[in-house]
């Protein structure tokens, strides 16, 4: 069976100035099977967000290849790339910034549907269904992002990500900016959606405690490399690397 996402020997080099460069991601390979929840854990500067941005094709790769459902999307642009975004969506960290401040949440969620040829009426109905699926009132469609709470906004962002019925959701610190009680609600929602829609998640996160019960597999990143990989119980219970051990010991 073809994995939803397969990443091979991914590298990203950022120019710092004329002479120096920064190796943000160094020879990273992994895959995400259909319906699998994979976490990438790492501290700031470990390259985890860069990986998400490269997979989402928001940043070009320096080297390596990205396969989405068996298709190489590494070099795709324009219309072909847009077609592939149907299968993969990204949920961002900051709820307030992930919607256009001048559009209602409903318009934001329905936008993807409209772009892929849905009629206005049908797109609006589908949007309302998505809101309810994500535990929101239908009335929220008329509101603007700054009028709702962070938790509601993040639910709406998840609804938008689901609009095109993707197989893979990239969650880039999707719960990190939220209060803990809200974070728990959003995690419960994500777990339910994953069961109902058999989604695959690439869950990018700095909090190892958060992924312990949530994910099937954990990749630990340090200075651009994957230093450890395994089920949460393996990685947390019996870490092989000193870095992983240090990371676990630092958790309060």
């Amino acid at each position, binding site marked *: 069976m073809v994995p939803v996402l397969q990443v091979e020997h991914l590298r990203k080099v950022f120019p710092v100035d004329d002479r120096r460069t920064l190796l943000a991601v160094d020879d990273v390979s992994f895959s995400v099977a259909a319906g699998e929840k994979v976490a990438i854990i790492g501290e700031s500067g470990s390259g985890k967000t860069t990986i998400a941005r490269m997979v989402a094709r928001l940043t070009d790769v320096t080297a390596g290849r990205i396969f989405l459902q068996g298709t190489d999307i590494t070099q795709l642009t324009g219309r072909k790339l*847009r077609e592939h975004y149907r299968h993969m969506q990204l949920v*961002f960290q900051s709820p307030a*910034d992930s*919607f*256009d*401040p001048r*559009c209602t949440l409903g318009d934001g969620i329905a*936008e993807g549907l409209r*772009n892929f040829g849905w009629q206005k009426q049908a797109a609006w109905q589908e949007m309302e269904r998505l809101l309810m699926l994500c535990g929101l009132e239908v009335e929220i469609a008329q509101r603007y992002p700054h009028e709702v709470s962070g938790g509601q906004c993040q639910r709406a962002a998840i609804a938008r990500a689901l609009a095109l019925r993707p197989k893979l959701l990239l969650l880039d610190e999707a719960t990190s900016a939220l209060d803990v009680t809200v974070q728990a609600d959003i995690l419960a929602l994500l777990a339910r959606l994953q069961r109902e829609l058999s989604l695959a998640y690439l869950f990018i996160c700095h909090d190892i405690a958060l992924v312990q019960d949530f994910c099937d597999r954990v990749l630990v990143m340090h200075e651009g490399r994957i230093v450890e990989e395994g089920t949460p119980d393996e990685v947390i219970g019996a870490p092989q690397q000193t870095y992983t051990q240090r990371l676990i010991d630092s958790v309060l």
Partner: protein
Amino acid sequence: MSEVTVRVQVVRRDHLRRRLLFFGGLAGVLILAAFFSSSLCPYDPYEQNLAIAKAAPSAEHWLGTDRYGRDMLSRVIAGSFTSIFSTLLLVGFITVFGSLIGIFCAWSGKWIDTLIMRLADMFLAFPGLVFALAVAAVLGGGVHNAIFALAAISWPKYARLARSQMLAQQELPYMQAAKMAGCTPLRLICRHVVPNIAGPLLVTAMLDIGTMMMELAGLSFLGLGAKPPIPEWGSMMSDTRNLLATQPWVTLAPGFAIFLSVMIFNLLGDTVRDWLDPKNRR
């Protein structure tokens, strides 16, 4: 145990809405007056009557008359048409044109962006009014050429602003989300970029109305703008400057008109900026 201290807080009310209506209203009145200027004039602004030349302000001629005996009030009112509409035309043109160039540069990136932006830098590095003078001198006088000259030196400011605003917006998650929702570049620009960068551009344009009005008046003052006898505030001041010591009202009247209009548009620009600032909204 002593009593709990209580302190009185003065609650500051937000008059932003009222300020916006007030200055917006003033600017509206100014523009309307300029539009209907020909019917507002008490006398014909071109009618000469040497018998009453250089008359001091009186009940009949509120602002006195100039050296040809033309009624100054009528000339100031008539002059508003040229002064205000040429300014609005100029500012409107450079805002739209400059912003489009900026958006195009930010979207295209690569060498064409670099090329146009270096060109813009060259325009910015040139002393503005000197350049405008040169352009006006080559093309000859007249309001149209003055507008053209000023447009040629003013667009880079808007291009740079639009470009930097768009680059900043493009980095925000909602733009990337829209991109991933399958928006084409054109739709991305029309639906998301333009509405979100319009605010700063609009404010800059509003604040520029005053500057541009002064620069146009300046060019006219130097004889490169409106040609006499067409009433225009800058050229009116220029015409009459040798009377400043003896009959100051003929120079001061158009000067005051410029001052008033510049101030109204500047205050309106400030208010619009405050109003667009999300921090000032609930």
